């Protein structure tokens, strides 16, 4: 289903859609207030952007430096060119340790690689330990947001779910009560897991260490109780120096939730005695994106989710409307690079309002890249361009413009368009909107008569 179709579905429950919009607006508002408490905020964004530019320009060097240091720290470093290789690497480590149950803290990369279904197919029980992720996992849903995975669910829905799965009291929606139930449930899983998987927020080339940021401490809990820690990271997560964390950690939490700092910023450098630490470095399309001049800086993303919270489209259509692992504006510039046909409606799921680019802590020009993807999609003939053209024809050109099509002015502009775009009988504009009243004369006519 296309984005417009899914967005229409989402809007069929207007109360819930309104609640979703207000909930995410609340997060954006917190982010605004928090960022305004830092006088040098804009400078900080600029610095972060420059650091990331440098990383992308020297990615090969930083990755090799990281590998060397990490190995010296007794970390096992693996390279995966795609999702399949990544999943195989993880599975082989689990098999080596005869591990049948793992805990995993939040990792968008493992979502991207569809690690959970892969491991489950091979008889491994995977438990997501971030509360929001656990909730969507129990519902057999993917996360609807990269930072707030269950943001689309209301308290009542979680209460019902927990009643069914965790035997909580029916109808008890008290967040504290529900959280305690989840904690008890997760403790058992933590204690039973021999291997813990985490994502990586930042990997430091200079030291061979990496940092994982969580609010719930679930990454630490998992890692410290397990014998083996596997950290999975996209190759773009490298930063040059440890001191660069002073830039990124200040930006990340404020941008994500408005907090001054994430509750747990855990540094991992070498395995505890008797334990194993693995890092899997994953490409999965990233080097291809890096080769695309217009789109490469989408790889600067630090996955804060601010562009989702601010996006007036995301807030009113929900994460699932995008049909991609990373939803929202950043997803709409990353996903077409992975599968342009599948994600061809995403760059059009935007008014190009530019709010995403203005909140982005690493200054990715998201809305400009949305515009550029539209050009790529239009050029890429044989996609659903024609269908899209028809939709466009239904509206902007036919109505209101088709009503004035005889206007000589517009003919000049319209004759350059594919004919499929220009005429159509359906009136999409007028379904819920009035047309402008047609004036007696155009401005041009008035000017000729009165001024020329």
């Amino acid at each position: 289903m296309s984005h417009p179709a899914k967005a229409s579905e989402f809007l069929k429950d207007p109360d819930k859609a309104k609640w979703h919009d207000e909930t995410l607006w609340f997060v954006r508002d917190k982010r605004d207030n928090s960022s305004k408490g830092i006088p040098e905020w804009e400078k900080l964004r600029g610095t972060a952007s420059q650091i990331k530019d440098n990383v992308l320009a020297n990615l090969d060097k930083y990755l090799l430096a990281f590998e060397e240091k990490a190995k010296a720290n007794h970390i096992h470093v693996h390279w995966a060119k795609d999702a399949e290789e990544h999943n195989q690497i993880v599975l082989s480590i689990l098999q080596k340790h005869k591990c049948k149950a793992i805990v995993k803290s939040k990792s968008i990369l493992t979502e991207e690689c569809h690690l959970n279904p892969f491991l489950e197919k091979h008889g491994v029980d995977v438990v997501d330990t971030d509360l929001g992720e656990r909730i969507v996992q129990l519902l057999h849903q993917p996360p609807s947001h990269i930072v707030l995975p269950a943001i689309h669910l209301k308290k009542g829905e979680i209460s019902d779910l927990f009643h069914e799965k965790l035997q909580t009291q029916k109808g008890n929606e008290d967040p504290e009560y529900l959280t305690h139930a989840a904690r008890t449930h997760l403790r058992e899983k933590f204690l039973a897991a021999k291997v813990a998987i985490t994502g990586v927020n930042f990997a430091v080339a200079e030291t061979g260490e990496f940092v994982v940021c969580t609010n719930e401490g679930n990454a630490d809990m998992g890692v410290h109780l397990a014998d083996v820690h596997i950290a999975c990271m996209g190759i773009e997560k490298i930063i040059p120096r440890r001191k660069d964390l002073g830039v990124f950690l200040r930006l990340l939490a404020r941008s994500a939730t408005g907090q001054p700092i994430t509750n747990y910023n855990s540094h991992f450098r070498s395995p505890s005695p008797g334990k194993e630490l693995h890092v899997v470095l994953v490409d999965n399309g990233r080097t291809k994106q890096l080769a695309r001049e217009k789109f490469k800086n989408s790889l600067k993303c630090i996955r804060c989710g601010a562009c989702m919270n601010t996006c007036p489209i995301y807030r009113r259509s929900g994460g699932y409307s995008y049909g991609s692992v990373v939803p929202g504006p950043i997803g709409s510039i990353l996903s077409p690079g992975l599968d342009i046909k599948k994600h061809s409606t995403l760059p059009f799921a935007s008014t190009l309002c530019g709010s995403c680019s203005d909140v982005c802590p690493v200054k990715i020009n998201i809305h400009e890249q949305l515009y550029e993807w539209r050009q790529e999609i239009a050029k890429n003939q044989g996609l659903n361009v024609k269908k899209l053209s028809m939709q466009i024809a239904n509206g902007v050109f036919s109505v209101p413009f088709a009503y004035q099509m005889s206007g000589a002015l517009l003919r000049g502009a319209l004759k350059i368009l594919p004919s499929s775009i220009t005429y159509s009988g359906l009136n999409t504009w007028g379904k819920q909107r009035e047309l402008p009243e047609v004036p007696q004369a155009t401005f041009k006519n008035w000017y000729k008569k009165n001024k020329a």
Partner: protein
Amino acid sequence: MSTRKKIALFIPCYVDQFYPKVGIATLELLEKLGCEVSYPIEQTCCGQPMANAGYEHDTMDTTKHFLKTFESYDYIVAPSGSCVLHIKEHTPEIPGKGKEQQAIKKKIFELTEFITDILQIKMLQGHFPHKVGFHASCHGHRGLRLGSCSERNEPYFSKAKSLLDHIQGLEWIALRRQDECCGFGGTFAVTEEALSVQMGKDRLEDHLTSGVEILTGGDMSCIMHLEGIARRNKNPLKFMHIAEILNQAIQ
């Protein structure tokens, strides 16, 4: 403004077709402010609707025509932030015309920025006893930076507000969400019809609950969309382009 400077009026195609009153108000306003303004009669569309739909490469002829029509002027002024932004950012490069294209990008201005930045008029005297809500259209707001953006850590400013502030009787109504998109978005208005309308309704609700009497802005495209929804739902709101308010106020 020195009479030696040649100022061209650029009236976007949909304003020409549907809102000639906005074109007239813009022209009269600039004349009242001492400008001598011409309207090059050969002008057509800037090409934005096609470019935003992914057909920038098909707007070469439109872009050439625009350049030919306007290149001899010192300034080009338009009552639309969106079309001005298009000329600045999304016109294809014409082979051999790089210098002229760069020049035109520097001399095209949205109306309020032309008044505040080029004419250097910091306040306007006049009378307009109404409660006004300002819709900050995204392309003018975040594209041309006609006002401070709520996402950024920067001191507050608004070129529109600075012009409306000293109009007697005019009450600038603060909105709950000062610069959220209205959902017009050109082709978006029809390709994502349901979302577009919902966004428009939400914007209107903010103006209505804040006690706005007249919704104004710098782009008729957004206003066309908002007015279309408001009329369908019989919302008690009036709609005027900021050029109409200023022109009426300083009668």
